[in-house]
């Protein structure tokens, strides 16, 4: 009982200490704005392409589109001109932004817009979790894309997380604090023994891990997982989507 009460008291004390020091160390103001801050610039690459090419249909999708659709065959069968936006591993947030901020605002409006995706397909996990997905979103998001902010960022947090992010510096600044700690954890020995700092360690990691990564093994693991998670027929596009005969 006594230990527990002492623990609670010390935890509160440490939290208060962190709440006063972390904001000044990392330059964060509380209550914090937890919504993502987007700039007003949007990359108009697809808008411009539509003006240039004047297609009849726009196809957007992930690898389902890139690897499984024969564009020449479609053109030969239907006699229409298509503009294809293939982004491997992409998902709804990105398609939404491209449609809203590039296609819908283009003076050229194609007759058809087709989305290609397959919900059973796995994508390389580190594409999303290590943040490679976010820079692409940044390219197409505008300043007032509230819907995206809500669905892709704010709704991912519970009310408790939002509250903690906004008012509790220990939680709000945890990533900054964690990064500082991990920097020390990872760099102390290389710095002490080899005078090798952040850049040097990062370069060494790049050299060791990127050069020798067994991509075949990685792909085999991924295919193995897909094979276990889905039935054989799920891999066939025609089974998943009732595609018009002309497209088969």
């Amino acid at each position, binding site marked *: 009982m006594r*230990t527990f009460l002492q623990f609670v008291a*010390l*935890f509160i004390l440490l939290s208060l200490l962190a709440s006063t020091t972390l904001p000044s160390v990392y330059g964060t103001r509380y209550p914090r704005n937890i919504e993502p801050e987007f700039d007003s610039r949007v990359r108009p690459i697809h808008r411009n392409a539509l003006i240039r090419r004047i297609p009849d249909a726009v196809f957007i999708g992930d690898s389902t589109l890139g690897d499984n659709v024969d564009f020449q065959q479609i053109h030969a069968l239907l006699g229409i001109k298509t503009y294809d936006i293939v982004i491997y591993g992409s998902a709804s947030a990105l398609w939404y932004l491209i449609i809203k901020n590039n296609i819908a605002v283009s003076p050229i409006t194609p007759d058809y817009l087709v989305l290609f995706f397959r919900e059973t397909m796995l994508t390389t996990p580190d594409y999303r979790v290590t943040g490679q997905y976010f820079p692409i979103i940044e390219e197409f998001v505008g300043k007032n894309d509230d819907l995206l902010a809500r669905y892709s960022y704010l709704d991912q947090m519970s009310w408790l997380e939002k509250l903690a992010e906004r008012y509790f510096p220990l*939680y709000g600044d*945890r990533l900054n604090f964690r990064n500082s700690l991990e920097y*020390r*954890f990872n*760099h102390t020995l290389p710095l002490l023994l080899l005078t090798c700092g952040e850049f040097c360690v990062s370069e060494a990691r790049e050299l*060791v891990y990127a050069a*020798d990564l067994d991509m075949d093994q990685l792909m085999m693991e991924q295919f193995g997982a897909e094979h276990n998670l889905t039935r054989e027929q799920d891999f066939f596009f025609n089974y998943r989507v009732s595609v018009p005969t002309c497209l088969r």
Partner: protein
Amino acid sequence: MELTSPYFVLFFTVILIMYWLLRQAHRQNFFLLVASYLFYAWFDVLYTALLAISSVIDYHLGRALAGGHSRRKLLLVISLTLNLGTLGVFRYFNFFSESVAVLLNSLGWRVDAVVLNIFVPLGISFYTFKKISYIIDVYRTGKSPAGNFVEYALYVAFFPQILAGPIERARKLIPQFQQTRVWRGEFFYDAWQLLLMGLFKKIVIADSIALVANRTFMLSEPSKVLAFAASLGFTLQILADFSAYTDLSRGFARLLGFETSENFHSPYLARTPTEFWNRWHITLSEWLRDYLFFPIRRALLQRERTLHPAFAWVIPPLATMLLSGLWHGAGWNFVLWGLLHGVLIAVYQVLGFGGSWSPRGALRQVAAWAVMFVFIIFSWIIFRSPSLDWFSNVLLTAPFSRGQADWVVTLASLSAVAFYAAPLVIKLLIDRYFTRLPLIEPAYYALAAVMVVVFSGTPVQDFVYFRF
């Protein structure tokens, strides 16, 4: 529904409140049984049926055994066949099928392996071992610890333990089910430290160091220094990860009023292989000792006149640890890992360092510990290797180092291991020497709680032992 997930916290809170509102043991047991099946069904409904059916069969076999059935041995054999058969089909069929196919192909016969496309039911190794220990105990004593089916089924499916143990014995858990339980404050005061340490070890230590270790094990042929650093990382990861699960499991069980078994007792301080297994995954070690090691040794000692005495020293540890390796995974690296431990135990015993042997003098103690620790790290490389080929490549053909970059990455990994291991070492020192000093223990827990907050909010990885 991981034990660290908000869903589980919500699930457990509801269960806890409703459970303590019930006043009678049989109602509490029935409620916990339903909760346990709901928890398991969250992962897979179909395999919940497997759990239920196998529990019904084993319960009735146990009752018949306790009731003085005339063909007791046959009943025991049926139960063992069913349990080991189920485990074999789900966990080992593909491994043996593929291994036999490889062997036959190497002999010139063209054979394709028959492969079952099935998932291994979560926790099957843990609950099967619980069921086997129950049935063997009933066979040996002629008494059934469970008074009714609910008690037995709850013993098998008890949700804090079903995914990754501890492999509790019926004689410890079932008598607790039979007692009337009323909420006492001490349940919480015992539980909070376990729960906090479980979260701290999992979120802060195990998941962070996993990132360091995993990257090297994904390389096709890392140099020896890199493999050593990764193995040291995995040595820390697997201890933090598995003991975190045990702490959480024990903490949740304690909140429900139960005292469950410890699974770890500073295993890396062991000075001999026997001592290591008395400190590592204690409930599995005890299971293997009682149901494999001792029976094999007894059988061999009874044949002392016909067999060389060395057999009684060498065969039991080899056989037991080989099966321990297979229990951990269906792969040749696990077999080799088990065999290595078996050989170590046998060699230490033959050299006179088995049983309760302890070196005299501080220097010898340190030397014995250092030798054993090197063996432990080495054995974890085998355990964690993606394949035996990978391990043999690292051991035999990989260079010691490929240059400056390898040393930098190795030092960075060792640096991370040292920092992440420090809290566990400090905890050990506090528990041993500073428990009487005021505020030391609460201060440690407060810092641990702060670290849990700082490291929270990133996806938590599966517990390593869920795979077993």
